[in-house]
């Protein structure tokens, strides 16, 4: 039976390397056949906002296509695809109160709304829990 890892993240997108590392950990766990639960709260609820758009880079003189700079919503979407491909579960909850205060409710397919009781339940049911704080 596949093991389950619960990860709690709170870093908003584009602020630090921590979001990238969290994505790398989720990716590695899914590739190892581990089910992953992600509890996103505080700024991390903005990782999945549907309205994110890529941009060109006028300093480098690159177009949007040339710049190839994915938004975090695309990275999260690709993690859901990876989970499907590997036959494991990726559950993603955005903390409702954090979503409401940030107006970050328009997210991509995959995540759902929840709260701390969901995190508590996951912690009790998982084989391991990783809490990644912010500064």
């Amino acid at each position, binding site marked *: 039976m596949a093991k389950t890892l619960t990860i709690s993240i709170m870093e908003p997108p584009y602020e630090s390397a*921590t979001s990238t590392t969290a994505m*790398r*950990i989720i990716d590695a766990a899914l*590739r190892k056949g*581990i089910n992953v639960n992600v509890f996103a709260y505080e700024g991390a609820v903005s990782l999945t906002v549907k309205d994110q758009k890529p941009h060109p880079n006028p300093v480098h003189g690159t177009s949007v296509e040339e710049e190839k700079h994915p938004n975090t919503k695309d990275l999260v979407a690709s993690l859901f695809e990876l989970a499907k491909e590997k036959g494991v579960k990726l559950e993603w909850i955005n903390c409702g109160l954090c979503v409401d205060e940030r107006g970050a409710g328009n997210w991509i397919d995959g995540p759902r709304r929840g709260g701390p009781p969901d995190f508590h339940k996951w912690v009790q049911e998982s*084989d*391991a829990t990783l809490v990644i*704080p912010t500064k």
Partner: protein
Amino acid sequence: MARYVLVESRDPFESRDVSYFYGLAADLAAKGEQVTLFLVQNGALVSRKGAQGNPLDHLVKGKVEVLVDSFSLRERGIQDSERHPSAKPSDIGNLVDQIMEEGAKVLWH
């Protein structure tokens, strides 16, 4: 004996409390616990050989296993020849394996 995985993501010159995290790793190992210090992001900067007051030798002598994320090393241009010998290159998959070990207690700084 308990199993601890301590993940350090910060540059030791950025914040004084990084040294407390190294101290925690050393103290746990001194009490006989099994401790891995996994350096990631700017935490990898301490693995440069020339850094003054480098704590890595002390940690390794104290039986702390020190691993450093290869991706973080590459991002920061730390070549093998510049890397402190006490910091063994590793990868994020190994970190996942350590986190998933039964009974592992994981702390992220």
